[in-house]
């Protein structure tokens, strides 16, 4: 019974897997390419400001039939660097 409750219903897996696949299909961007894009993006930004690399979050999000690239890139603050 516990096992029954724990196992995810197959329709839920189907939906979650499709959500990811469709985002990549629609953008024609393979997961590996998205990783390369992230690296390039961070490299460009790093030329101007310092980045909190560990906290960076870049992902593709679906919004109806359109996709957006959402990037949350925290910058290393100068005051913290001074005090540190």
């Amino acid at each position, binding site marked *: 019974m516990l096992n029954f409750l724990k196992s995810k219903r*197959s*329709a839920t897996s189907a*939906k979650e*897997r*499709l959500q990811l*696949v*469709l985002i990549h*299909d629609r953008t024609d961007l393979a997961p590996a390419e998205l990783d390369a894009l992230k690296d390039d993006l961070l490299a460009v930004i790093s030329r101007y400001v310092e980045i909190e690399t560990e906290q960076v979050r870049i992902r593709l999000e*679906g919004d109806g*039939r359109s996709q957006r690239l959402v990037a949350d890139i925290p910058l290393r603050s100068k005051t913290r660097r001074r005090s540190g």
Partner: protein
Amino acid sequence: MGAQVVTITSGKGGVGKTTAVANLAVALAADGARVVCIDADIGLRNLDVVMGLENRIVYDLVDVIEGRCRLRQAMIRDKRLPELYLIPAAQTRDKSAVSPSDMIRLCEELRNDVDWILIDSPAGIERGFKNAIAPADQVLVITNPEVSAVRDADRVIGILEAEGKGTPSLIINRLNQTMVKHGDMLSAEDVLDLLAIKLIGIVPEDDQVIVATNRGVPVALDHKSRAGQAFRDIARRLKGEQVPFMNLEAGSSLWERIIRLGRK
């Protein structure tokens, strides 16, 4: 005014394109409209057998396009209804025998004589699909609540938008409400969430569809069939009527019906 050209397509094969075309055609024609269906699946024709007209084929779509017969000669009249016709696909040719502009020209010739032109698209996204959507005023994408069908439907929707065909409407075919209830099938809401286009109909899984296809009598002619009812509802929505979506819970099993009666 002229006819509305509606193309039914899906990306994936076997999801119910031909069944949908046959049933929508029958439902529209039963209502008094003049309807022509065109089987655009050159080399893999099937709309003729699904409609039960396979024994009456003399000329086909490619014969018309290549000038071996007049358009009227290739239109097989369905004797069950006053104004329902089929233009069958050629069986011994391939998609390259027809071009998108051939299809546009053919539909222009038909437009003034009928109310509806329904085009059965082949599976895939290549030449045959491009031929089928070229003359369309409206495209219906049909899918099943199943991962590969939904993924392919999404690709097709993307291509239609990129080709300037606008956003198509969606038919969800073969929905099994019992499996949905058990969490083992994507629900209509799930599919709509994923594909994010307008819904025009949900067709429940119904054994009668196979029985009807065996006989060559589209299920929309069977007033007891729930799938038939769903197709008749889609036909009315195509005409612009507001038709509420059927309660898929109803009639799922005798026991459930008794429970529901008790609740009323």
